[in-house]
């Protein structure tokens, strides 16, 4: 790492050099250290540290173990989990472990040293199998090199050295040394053969310890650096407005009206035509089609409030998108539903011959879910410094590789001239996967070169410029056999959205009902209504809707057949991976399935799998049982939720419990509250006064997370998404039991639940 980074130093930064030289003890600094010193955060240096054992692991003389992870911390604990995986084999003292976010610049320079395994840089994947193996191997390799260093120093066979709890010892001679004392020597050792990994049953840390997430102390002291908290010397602030109608353009604006307001430095225009394009082969995760720059304006001022006020005073005239601008929710949802009749659709799954099944009882219904906004608590933001020679970005992305390559694409700079620093992430739930929200601050900073600019979306701008939950409308038709079970199922899902890549079918056609053969005739298809309003990833994309549609429909079939909904599901799962039946039984038993409930109370159950329902011993199966009480006036209270799950094994039981609790509440909000209304072509709900969110006073249920259905299969599948699915149909099915009212759309707050 060398001259290419020196190039990115611009005039305005000379004074930071002084500051950072002082901070770093006067060493000659490269760009990496410059950034690190000038904007302190949890990010790793952009080149090798002198005494690191590997790019992932550095052990200081004081015994601190620094682990550099390529995975953002979005709240699911993936950052901490990766450190735990390495700790298991490294044998270090967990109290000495800290984490930094690895450098994508270094990753590029060193041939992908941080990006191994499936979606390795993606916030959700701390324990995917390939990455687990790689991380365990990193820990084992470091441990063996420490042992070898001790053996060399003490002139004894390496087999006599034990490594435990950050201490190397030689029992026969009583010699001991800390990892820190031997780390520098270990860094110089090359192993001829990589050590074998411990069998899982010999793990002493994973699956046993349940440490809290490593960033919590900083959070609790107010010291955690989220994207919006980044401080770079000389930084100025930008307030942002993009075209109010998605796809619209700026027709005219009058910067002179605000340029003399206090603190205002510039008004810049965002125009997708300014995107330069990557000069080399794109290695981004998702490409660039979902993160194009939108037309907009930004006001740059000394302080954010000055920028925001000037933006509000800036006269702007916008013109609509080319092509149809959709006007309101009703119009959009009606056109989506019309696809059931009008569109041939694309066949997703076909078995047997549904047309051959005639007679029998028919259950036919449609289900729908609306637009929603990710509503992460940290508004979108990013900080960037762009010059002709280089760019440096600080951002709370969910995908570091994507953010890095979007910066390259926006600026046209060579990858080696781009530095990117990962901050903590204040939620996102999918909103930070595509890096459109990284492209914007880069574009703003490019228009104001040589000065670091932090661009902050107002909450209203976040809502207006969301990449919303994909609305969908699904129709099912089942013909029941004499035994009450479906002989044929025909179904069509109609999605609404600009970006079909988010139209995931997980939780829909991959459900074992349709794949296991228990229903002999199946025909499932999908259609899409393209609209100008942009959709995106919202925690468990589309899965969070499909589970509602499938599991409400199955419940309706059970009712039509006169069979208990639990028994009905157990029968339909009887030819499939036992894990599903185990989860159903555990959740039902814990919830008290079958007991007599007072009038107005009901118990509902639902099950699904993220992200591998069609495979045995794969993904995370999760079953939710919900108990509700509905007053005669229609007031709903979710009293108790029991969740069982099988992700194979768990690495940190309390972390898994926390994720399932949180996903349950997240899914409850989706189910009960969330509908982002579109009016006059744009989001009508722009802040939390109109977009209700569950709070502690909202009669939240007791949530019990049960581990008894865990199969012990060696996978440790991801856990963050599965829980947002079954909660909706579990509550809906419980409401049916309580009131006889069947809810076929969300949010439930818009339904009259009164009964007599």
């Amino acid at each position, binding site marked *: 790492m060398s001259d290419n980074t020196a190039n990115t130093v611009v005039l305005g930064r000379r004074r930071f050099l002084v500051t950072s030289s002082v901070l770093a003890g006067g060493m000659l600094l490269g760009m990496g250290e410059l950034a690190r010193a000038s904007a302190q955060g949890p990010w790793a240096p952009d080149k090798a540290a002198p005494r690191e054992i590997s790019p992932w692991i550095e052990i200081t003389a004081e015994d601190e173990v620094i682990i550099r992870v390529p995975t953002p911390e979005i709240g699911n604990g993936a950052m901490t989990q990766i450190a735990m995986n390495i700790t298991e084999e490294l044998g270090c003292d967990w109290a000495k472990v800290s984490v930094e976010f690895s450098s994508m610049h270094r990753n590029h320079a060193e041939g992908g040293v941080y990006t191994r395994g499936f979606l390795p840089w993606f916030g959700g994947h701390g324990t995917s199998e390939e990455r687990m193996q790689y991380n365990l191997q990193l820990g084992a390799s470091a441990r063996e090199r420490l042992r070898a260093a001790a053996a060399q120093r003490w002139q004894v066979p390496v087999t006599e050295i034990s490594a435990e709890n950050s201490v190397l010892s030689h029992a026969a001679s009583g010699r001991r040394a800390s990892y820190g004392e031997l780390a520098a020597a270990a860094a110089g050792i090359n192993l001829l053969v990589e050590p074998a990994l411990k069998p899982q049953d010999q793990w002493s840390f994973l699956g046993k310890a349940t440490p809290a997430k490593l960033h919590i102390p900083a*959070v*609790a002291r107010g010291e955690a650096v989220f994207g*919006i908290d980044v401080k770079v010397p000389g930084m100025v602030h930008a307030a942002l407005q993009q075209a109010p109608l998605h796809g619209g353009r700026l027709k005219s604006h009058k910067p002179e009206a605000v340029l003399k307001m206090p603190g205002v430095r510039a008004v810049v225009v965002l125009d997708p035509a300014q995107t330069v394009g990557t000069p080399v082969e794109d290695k981004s995760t998702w490409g660039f089609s979902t993160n194009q720059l939108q037309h907009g304006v930004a006001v740059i001022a000394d302080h954010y*409030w000055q920028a925001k006020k000037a933006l509000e005073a800036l006269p702007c005239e916008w013109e609509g998108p080319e092509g149809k601008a959709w006007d309101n929710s009703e119009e959009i949802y009606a056109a989506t539903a019309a696809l059931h009749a009008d569109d041939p659709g694309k066949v997703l799954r076909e078995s047997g011959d549904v047309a051959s099944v005639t007679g029998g009882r028919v259950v036919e219904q449609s289900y729908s879910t609306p637009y929603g906004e990710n509503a992460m608590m940290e*508004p979108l933001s990013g900080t960037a410094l762009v010059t002709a020679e280089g760019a440096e970005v600080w951002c709370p992305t969910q995908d570091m590789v994507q953010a890095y390559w979007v910066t390259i694409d926006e600026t046209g700079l060579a990858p080696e001239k781009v530095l990117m620093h990962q901050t903590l992430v204040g939620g996102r739930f999918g909103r930070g996967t595509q890096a459109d929200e990284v492209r914007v601050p880069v574009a703003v900073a490019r228009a104001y070169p040589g000065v670091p600019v932090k661009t902050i979306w107002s*909450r209203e701008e976040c809502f207006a410029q969301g990449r919303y939950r994909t609305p969908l409308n699904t129709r099912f038709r089942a013909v029941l056999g004499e035994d009450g079970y479906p002989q044929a199922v025909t179904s069509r899902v109609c999605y609404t959205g600009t970006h079909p890549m988010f139209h995931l079918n997980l939780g829909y056609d991959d459900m074992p009902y349709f794949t296991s053969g228990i229903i002999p005739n199946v025909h499932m298809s999908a259609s899409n209504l393209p609209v100008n309003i942009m959709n995106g990833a919202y925690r468990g994309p589309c899965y969070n809707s499909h589970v509602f549609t499938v599991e409400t429909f199955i419940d309706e079939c059970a009712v039509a057949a006169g069979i208990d909904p639990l028994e009905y599901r157990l029968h339909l799962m009887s030819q499939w991976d036992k894990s599903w039946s185990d989860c159903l039984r555990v959740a039902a038993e814990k919830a008290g399935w079958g007991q007599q409930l007072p009038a107005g109370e009901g118990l509902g159950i639902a099950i699904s799998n993220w992200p591998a329902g069609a495979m045995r011993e794969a993904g995370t199966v999760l079953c939710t049982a919900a108990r509700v009480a509905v007053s005669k006036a229609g007031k709903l209270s979710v009293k108790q939720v029991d969740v069982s799950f099988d992700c194979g094994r768990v690495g940190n039981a309390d972390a898994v419990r926390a994720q399932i609790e949180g996903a349950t509440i997240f899914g409850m909000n989706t189910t009960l509250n969330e509908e982002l209304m579109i009016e006059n072509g744009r989001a009508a709900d722009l*802040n*939390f006064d109109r977009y209700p*969110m569950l*709070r502690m006073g909202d009669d939240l249920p007791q949530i019990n997370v049960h581990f008894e259905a865990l199969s012990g299969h060696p996978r440790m599948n991801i856990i963050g998404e599965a829980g947002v699915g079954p909660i909706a149909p579990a509550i809906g099915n419980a409401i049916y039991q309580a009131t006889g009212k069947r809810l076929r759309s969300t949010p439930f707050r818009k339904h009259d639940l009164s009964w007599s």
Partner: protein
Amino acid sequence: MTSIKLKVNGAPQQVDVDPDTPLLWVLRDHLGMTGTKFGCGIAQCGACTVHINGAATRSCIIPAASADGLDITTIEGLSENGDHPLQALWYELNVPQCGYCQSGILMAAAGLLASNSNPSDADIDAAVSNICRCGTYPRVRAAIHRAAAALRAGGEA
């Protein structure tokens, strides 16, 4: 521009600022204290909660002009060494997920405990009406009850 004087975490501060700048942005942008978070700007979410003259208050709608002379405690000043019982329990009970809303929740909870050493669930509901999108509420509640018990047993508020 107006000049206001504040006491923040015990230290006197003087800030030259546009008079309608919300206290939140005075803290974050002018004083560089970013522990207090921007969430909504309309006092809905509580991420910006600080203590003003001892009471938990949402700082995003308080203009600088009316903040002159106030005694403010932010998350950075909640305790000397990050050892308020709530802060310790936040780690022990693995309360935060992403963590962004948590300084506001901690300040709301600390404000409650300062005046009520044995809060009921209803007291917590009323005092901690912050939004947490990650859904950490069950652990927040458990930690507040545990902290209250610790304080009653002789810890310091």
